[in-house]
């Protein structure tokens, strides 16, 4: 209400502008980095499961396990960071008006990424990929860019959302 009134006043007699977010506003946003990070998380879970199947894991396996867990942590953090940047920097009133549930979805991604840090269950990772896919679809829709889903040609061979840029 108050915002709308000020908006009208601003159009008649513009107020001074103050900048609040002062990093370089590069406007380069792409949820693909978040999807790749989520896929990485699933891949790490799969590789951890392979070690789990071994009857007598060697010291080399334990060393590999430590690396996989570490990389899983990094990937989960990357999902959070990438999604948070798009949500915090790119999403503004028009995008929130179009997708009122955006914040809820982002929060659920944060929670799911935390779950994936704690878990080695592949299903948790697959859920994370799906949530990030939904976020990607939402993101591209705010830009009026159509999307399609396709299975990525590398492990873990899950569905990923891609922007269909040929028509735009």
């Amino acid at each position, binding site marked *: 209400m*108050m*915002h*709308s009134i*000020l*908006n009208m006043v*601003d159009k008649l007699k513009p*107020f*001074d*502008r*103050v*900048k*609040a*977010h*002062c*990093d370089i506003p590069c406007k380069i946003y792409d949820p693909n980095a978040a999807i790749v990070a989520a896929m990485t998380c699933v891949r790490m879970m799969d590789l951890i499961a392979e070690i789990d199947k071994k009857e007598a894991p060697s010291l080399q396996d334990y060393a590999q396990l430590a690396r996989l867990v570490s990389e899983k942590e990094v990937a989960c953090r990357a999902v959070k960071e990438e999604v*948070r*940047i798009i949500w*915090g*920097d790119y*999403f*503004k*009133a028009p995008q*929130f*008006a179009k997708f009122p549930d955006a914040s809820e979805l982002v929060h659920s991604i944060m929670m799911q990424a935390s779950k994936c840090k704690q878990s080695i269950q592949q299903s948790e990772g697959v859920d994370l990929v799906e949530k990030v896919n939904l976020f990607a679809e939402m993101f591209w829709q705010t830009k009026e860019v159509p999307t399609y889903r396709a299975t990525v040609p590398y492990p873990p061979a899950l569905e990923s959302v891609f922007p269909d840029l040929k028509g735009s």
Partner: protein
Amino acid sequence: MSPDISDGSFVLTSRLFRHVQVGHIVAVDHEVYGFIVKRVAKVAPDGQLWLEGTNVSSLTSERIGWVSPRRVLGKVWWFSRYRHC
């Protein structure tokens, strides 16, 4: 300053204040960055202000540097929660 103040918000400022205190949000005319709005993190004994953003990817306090109280345009006393409309 997101998520506190998101881009496109209106901020109403007032010059009617006695002292700028830690936690206040102020609009300042920065010598490098122009008109910016930031939160006061520290106030030096001589009144110089150390400002900070609330977003993780904000311009860092170190890059903003100490700001003279003379550069304060006003203390923010209201801002519109633009993204919740």
